[in-house]
C-alpha cells in the first residue's frame, strides 16, 4: 500500500468519522456510495491533499455489482493518483453525481450512464452520450447481447414494406419464424477470441 493512500485513509477517518471505508490494493472503497460527494469535497478542500482535479471516471461490471472508479490528482501539489471506488447493485444502480464538486465529471458520468446504466443522481443533464435516446440495454455490461445484423426481423420487414422496398420471400419467412418463436435475432455463437 502506498504511503499516500494510507495517509488519505487516516485523514478521511479522522475528518469524516462516520464514513465507512477500506482499502483495496492502492485504492479506497467507500462502503456507502452516499458518502462519495462528502469524501470528494473533503479531499478537494483538505490542505494536505488539495485533490482539485478529477482525472477519470470509469464504470466497470463485476457481475455481482457495478463499480465506479475515480482517479483524483492534485494540480496544485502535483501529486496523485488517489483512487476512490464505490460499488452498487446491478439492479437500479445509483451513485451520487460528482458534478457539483468537479465539472469534469459531466461528460464522463454521461458516458458511464450510457454504457453501464449507472444513474448518477444529481447530474444536471443525464442523457445518453454516444448512443441515441431509445437504445435498449447497456452495451458494455457483461450480459449485453448484440443483434444479428444479417437477419431481418419483423419490424424491419414492416418498415421496408412501408417504404416501398421489395423484400424477397426468404427474408419474410425467416422473420415470421423468428416472431412466431418469440425470439430476437441475436448473435448466437460466441466469437473465438482473436489474437
Amino acid at each position, binding site marked *: 500500500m502506498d504511503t499516500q493512500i494510507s495517509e488519505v485513509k487516516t485523514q478521511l477517518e479522522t475528518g469524516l468519522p462516520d464514513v465507512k471505508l477500506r482499502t483495496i490494493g492502492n485504492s479506497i472503497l467507500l462502503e456507502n456510495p452516499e458518502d462519495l460527494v462528502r469524501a470528494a469535497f473533503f479531499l478537494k478542500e483538505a490542505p494536505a491533499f488539495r485533490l482539485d482535479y478529477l482525472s477519470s471516471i470509469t464504470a466497470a461490471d463485476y457481475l455481482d455489482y457495478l463499480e465506479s472508479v475515480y482517479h483524483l490528482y492534485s494540480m496544485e501539489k502535483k501529486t496523485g493518483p488517489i483512487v476512490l471506488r464505490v460499488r452498487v447493485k446491478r439492479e437500479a444502480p445509483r451513485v451520487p453525481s460528482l458534478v457539483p464538486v468537479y465539472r469534469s465529471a459531466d461528460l464522463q458520468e454521461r458516458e458511464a450512464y450510457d454504457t453501464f446504466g449507472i444513474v448518477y443522481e444529481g447530474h444536471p443533464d443525464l442523457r445518453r452520450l454516444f448512443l441515441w435516446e431509445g437504445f435498449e440495454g447497456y452495451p*458494455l455490461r457483461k450480459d449485453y447481447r448484440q443483434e444479428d*445484423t444479417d437477419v431481418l426481423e419483423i419490424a424491419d420487414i414492416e418498415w421496408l414494406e412501408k417504404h416501398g422496398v421489395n423484400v424477397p420471400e426468404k427474408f419474410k419467412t425467416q422473420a415470421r419464424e423468428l416472431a412466431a418463436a418469440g425470439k430476437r435475432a441475436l448473435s448466437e455463437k460466441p466469437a473465438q477470441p482473436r489474437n
Partner: protein
Amino acid sequence: MNHIENKSRIDPELRDEMAKQNIFITSLDFIYNWGRRSSVWPMQFGLACCAIEMIAAAAARYDIARFGAELFRASPRQADLMIVAGTVTKKMTPNVVRLYNQMAEPKYVLAMGACAISGGPFIDGYNVLRGIDRFIPVDVYVPGCPPRPEALLYGLMELQKKIDSQTFTKAEWYQKGLKREFPVPELGPNGLIPKFNPEIWQPREQDARKTRYGQTVLTGKKQKAPRLEPVAVPPPPAA
C-alpha cells in the same frame, strides 16, 4: 469492378492525326464523358481516420488536382462523388444515406478504407455498420486501413474508367422511373431499422467469417469476475 471500354467509332489514330491539323472530330459520348471524368467534384465528407489520408491526397505531395477532383464541396448538391472515408456507425448511417439522396445525378460513391467497405477492424462493434453498401450502392472500393493517398488516386482513376464506359444514350440518370433515392433508415432500440436494404445488399449464403470466428463478440463471454483484493471474503454489495 466490371466496366467496358468506351468504343468510339472513330479511329483514335485518325483522330489524333486530324487534331494535329487543328481539326477536331469527336463523338458526343467522348466529349461528354471527358468533361465529366475530368471534373469529378468530391463531397467534403470525412468520417474518421481515412479522411486524414483524403486531406493528404488533396495536399501538395499527392495533389488530387491532377485528376480534376480537388474541389471538395461542402454541399451534397454540388458534388458528383461521395468519398465515404471512414467508419460508418449506426448513428451516422441515416445522415450518410440522406446525403446520398441529396446529391444530384449522376452520382458516384467511393468506399474508402476497410471500415466503409465491411466494418473493417471494428466489425464486431454494436454501433458499427458493416459496410456502407448495405444501404447505398458503391461504385469503387478502395481497401486499406487507411488506404494510402496513392490508393485513393488509383480508385479515382478506376472511377474515371467507369465514367468513360457509360454512354450518353443509355445513361441511367436520364431514364424514366430511376430509383436512386433510398429510404433513410431509422435508429431503433438495438440498432438500425432496417438492418440492411435487400434491394441493394443481401447477406452471403456462405459466410466464412461467421462459421469460423462466430458472428459477433459477446461481451458476456467471461463468467468469473476478478477479485482485486487479496482477502478471501467476497465483498457484499453496498446498498
